[in-house]
């Protein structure tokens, strides 16, 4: 379409397409990739576990539940679904953290992961109930389509809606990045280095999850970016967050853009973004894991 072939800016149709549909979608695709990969990177570090992704901690399932709830009870207004999704994804995070504090099993990291799994399961059961209740002709396809994830119907109002929280959080994370290294150390070691471990973890956790909550409210559930991109970034730049977080942001932005472009152009109809990122992500992940490891830096 107009994005790839040179067009005439004086053509009002072309102008309208580029400025009002393509450009906001481009920005959202990049921000989505950046948020998911930065968030995945940070969560992997603070949980000292390279297999964590932002979908943990009830964020994605919370968003799904919020969106489904809005679609069923408040009609198909996009804005309502978006607001409900971001509110419920944050609720998912807060419930996970709250539950983790109440659990009496294992250390902080394990408790948080277990709590996240439980809260996710709770919300996904809720989504199941809502799907069951939904009008099979009108609401159910809408919910399903939302769950598959995608950036169709992107608009400037969506960009404005998420731009400041996302950029603000990413900017703070970016400037805080060397210190995130300290949070990967054993708790007492970090403590001895003057880190207020619980406080800094919660702060970094919030900064990592808020952009994702804002993004999934628009895009629906897009998985794998947050898991695979941080791995590739670390492979390229080493473990040090000072360099690996910027790589993660760049690669994530690029990957989001590529996936969304393919989703938009590969077939006559739109391919849901979530399907593409899972497919590409899983393939990349397997290729990446079968490459030989570097031994020295």
């Amino acid at each position: 379409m107009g994005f790839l072939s040179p067009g005439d800016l004086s053509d009002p149709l072309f102008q309208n397409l580029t400025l009002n549909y393509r450009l906001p979608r481009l920005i959202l695709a990049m921000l989505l990739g950046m948020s998911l990969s930065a968030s995945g990177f940070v969560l992997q570090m603070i949980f000292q576990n390279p297999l964590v992704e932002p979908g943990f901690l009830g964020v994605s399932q919370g968003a799904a539940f919020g969106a489904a709830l809005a679609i069923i009870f408040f009609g198909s207004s996009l804005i309502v679904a978006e607001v409900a999704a971001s509110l419920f994804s944050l609720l998912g995070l807060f419930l996970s953290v709250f539950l983790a504090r109440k659990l009496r099993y294992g250390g902080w990291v394990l408790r948080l992961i277990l709590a996240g799994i439980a809260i996710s399961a709770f919300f996904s059961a809720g989504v199941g109930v809502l799907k069951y209740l939904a009008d099979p002709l009108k609401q159910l396809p809408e919910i399903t389509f939302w769950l598959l994830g995608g950036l169709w119907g992107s608009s400037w109002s969506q960009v404005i809606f998420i731009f400041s929280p996302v950029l603000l959080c990413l900017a703070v994370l970016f400037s805080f990045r060397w210190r995130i290294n300290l949070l990967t150390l054993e708790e007492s070691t970090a403590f001895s280095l003057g880190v207020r471990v619980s406080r800094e973890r919660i702060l970094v956790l919030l900064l990592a999850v808020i952009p994702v909550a804002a993004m999934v409210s628009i895009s629906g559930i897009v998985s794998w970016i947050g898991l695979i991109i941080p791995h590739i970034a670390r492979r390229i730049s080493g473990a040090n967050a000072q360099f690996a977080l910027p790589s993660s942001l760049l690669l994530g932005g690029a990957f989001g853009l590529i996936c969304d472009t393919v989703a938009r152009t590969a077939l006559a109809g739109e391919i849901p973004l979530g399907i593409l990122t899972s497919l590409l992500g899983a393939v990349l992940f397997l290729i990446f894991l079968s490459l030989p490891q570097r031994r020295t830096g």
Partner: protein
Amino acid sequence: MRALCASNLFFSYEKDRPVLQDLSLEVREGEILAILGPNGSGKTTFLHLLLRELRPEGGDIYFFERPASSYSRKELSLILALARQEERVAFQFTVLEYVLMGRAPYLRPLEAPGKKDLEVAFEALKATGMESLYNRYLTALSGGERQLVIIARTIAQNPRIFLLDEPLAHLDLKNQKRLLDILLDLKKRGKTIVFTTHDPNSAALVADRVLIISNGKSLAFGEVRQVFQREVLSAVYGVKLEVDSKSGRPLIYLENGTSRV
């Protein structure tokens, strides 16, 4: 000046199961204190109380004649460094990146280490003989090399008191010698060192004072010569021991004289 003074410390993780009972000691600035005791005797807990990661249920701790509770977290990180017994590192940091983390107390929250910190980190690696490994992954090192790199991180932190939990545990004889030399070198620079060990002979080689604890109670505390007496040690370890003090520093044998403790 007393670098460290603890009086009548009590601590327990669970009610009615005390881990430390009525523990008192003092260490002067520039001295080395060795803490000996069987596994589970409370040595590590004691170090974590000093670090103020754990709070004692009773008793007081003073650093440089000031109550430990009056220090802020930041101030404490400038005077105390900890090398844990086991340090799990989940990501592939290089040795230099890891040692640089020791500079955290000197950096502002949004600051990354600079040129000066790099110099300090290299000095610390040189002091431990690990400078040639600076670009290796920490996860690719042997247990002994790793232990020395952890010590280098505490040196880069440049504290006044070093808390070292079993620093000799993974070391072969050559590296044990190297570590003991590092401790003596730090002492020469006026640093105070508290370390735990299972080996009374290593303690005897470098320590000025020794604390022996068992089941959370202090069995003996004092200068090396006072504590390392045949009767005291035999009672503590429950086997008959001989102490040979002819060479200046005491040397401890099992009584039949064939094996070193």
